[in-house]
């Protein structure tokens, strides 16, 4: 998010708008943010639902997609009720004062756009964060447990972390650079997924039976929609249609492309088999990596960040994951958490010369990045465990029974089949 972020960079024209005493609406900026919000919305019930659904076994595809859908629905609801207030209300450790968007009308301006639009934009971030985490829990978590979890997690985990990074809190803000949510969204969601995967335990046949993805074609389509939506995510985080948004757009695209290349080349070297799920995952890894840097890197930086992002993602999933016994089913931690950490570090390393503040100090910035990463890991790790524990209690256990797991959640929980030929 620009507001916080820019203080780290050389002064930029559009800052003027934010500094202005009586902010006025800019129709070009508003036009862009209307679209950017729609783009990010699409990422959850379409992009992620397909990306994840395509990698799930055919007996659980609908349940996996359903988690993205319900994450967006419930996430949106709790966001407007209290999440936005916690994240962007006044206060240091926690915001307040905007419950149910109190006091905001269609004429309230934030920066140069309507604040209600800003509410909607930020709400799509909350929803996708928890939906990303669902990838670690598939094929065994109860639908009811996950639904409760969504509500609690957005309020207790996502909103506070957002408040510290972007919302005005100062004690827990270390001056880290996180333009579009590398720490706030990706590391946070990856850690949350990992913790829940540990608590849930492994799928009965994990590591035993071959787990065949329903359809890599859906995964590719999902990744393409995520890529598309990510332009709203990253370039939209500028909250204006200006030169920095253009920069963010281009480098987002470049990093995604290099993520594809990085993952496929790694696969090709290791297995001689470049897979489509690999290409799709590489795109997402490249995008995760560039997210915090999308307001500050240049093209050359994006090439490196994306390429390494793709390779790190592959190594995480194909090698490091095996050292752990945790069944992080769709690799939310490896693709979002681990790669997110790379992205956050890289943000300090690869700043465009034309965007670097004169007094920029690499050492100090690296410390800030690491502090923010650690805070996120610790806070998200502990609080996620607590809210998932509560969610399980409320629904008498967070895991479906064995028969349901065996036969599939689509049939047993939803009474449906992903495809009837």
């Amino acid at each position: 998010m620009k507001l916080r972020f820019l203080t780290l960079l050389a002064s930029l024209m559009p800052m003027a708008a934010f500094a202005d005493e009586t902010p006025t609406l800019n129709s070009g900026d508003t036009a862009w943010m209307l679209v950017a919000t729609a783009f990010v919305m699409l990422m959850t019930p379409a992009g992620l639902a397909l990306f994840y659904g395509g990698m799930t076994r055919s007996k659980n595809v609908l349940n996996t997609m359903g988690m993205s859908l319900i994450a967006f629905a419930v996430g949106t609801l709790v966001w407007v009720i209290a999440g936005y207030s916690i994240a962007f209300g006044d206060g240091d450790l926690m915001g307040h004062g905007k419950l149910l968007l109190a006091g905001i009308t269609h004429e309230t301006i934030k920066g140069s756009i309507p604040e209600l639009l800003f509410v909607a934009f930020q709400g799509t971030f909350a929803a996708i964060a928890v939906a990303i985490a669902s990838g670690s829990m598939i094929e065994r978590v109860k639908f009811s447990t996950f639904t409760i979890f969504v509500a609690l997690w957005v309020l207790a985990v996502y909103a506070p972390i957002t408040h510290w990074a972007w919302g005005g809190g100062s004690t827990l803000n270390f001056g880290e650079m996180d333009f579009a949510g590398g720490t706030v969204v990706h590391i946070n969601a990856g850690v949350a997924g990992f913790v829940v995967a540990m608590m849930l335990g492994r799928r009965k046949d994990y590591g035993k039976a071959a787990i065949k993805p329903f359809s890599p074609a859906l995964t590719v389509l999902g990744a393409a929609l995520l890529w598309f939506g990510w332009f709203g995510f990253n370039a939209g985080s500028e909250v204006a249609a200006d030169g920095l948004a253009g920069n963010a757009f281009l480098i987002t695209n470049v990093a995604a492309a290099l993520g594809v290349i990085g993952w496929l080349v790694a696969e090709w070297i290791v297995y001689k088999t470049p897979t489509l799920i690999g290409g799709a995952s590489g795109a997402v890894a490249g995008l995760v990596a560039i997210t915090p840097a999308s307001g500050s890197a240049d093209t050359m930086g994006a090439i490196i960040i994306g390429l390494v992002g793709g390779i790190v993602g592959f190594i995480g999933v194909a090698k490091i994951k095996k050292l752990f016994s945790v069944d992080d089913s769709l690799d939310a931690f490896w693709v979002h958490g681990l790669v997110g950490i790379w992205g956050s570090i890289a943000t300090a390393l690869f700043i465009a010369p034309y965007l670097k503040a004169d007094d920029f100090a690499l050492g100090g910035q690296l410390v800030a990045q690491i502090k923010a990463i650690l805070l996120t890991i610790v806070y998200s790790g502990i609080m996620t465990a607590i809210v998932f524990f509560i969610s399980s209690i409320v629904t008498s256990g967070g895991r479906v029974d064995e028969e349901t797991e065996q036969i599939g959640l689509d049939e047993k929980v939803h009474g449906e089949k992903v495809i009837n030929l």
Partner: protein
Amino acid sequence: MKKIEAIIKPFKLEDVKDALVEAGIEGMTVSEVKGYGRQQGHSELYRGAEYVVEFIPKIKIEIVVSTDEYANIAINAINKAAKTGKIGDGKIFVSTIDHVIRIRTGEEDAEAL
């Protein structure tokens, strides 16, 4: 009457069908099956995980013929058309059918074929 069941490689279906029709066999029923045998399945990748596909796609052809002579004709035709010489070419099983009825006309046995 005899029933011939042949398990063949999928891409050989067209050739086998042509060979059978040429040999005068004009009816058959085919289905998709998976075979387990000496032929090793290829391995597939799923992100980091590699797994061997043990069941290999095959096609099963079922033909019911009225006489042993026809059975031999069919077996020969299949044998020739389905053979690649590589492991996994498949098998032919012959068994006995007691009775056949053509639903449309009610014709029975040899006449029904």
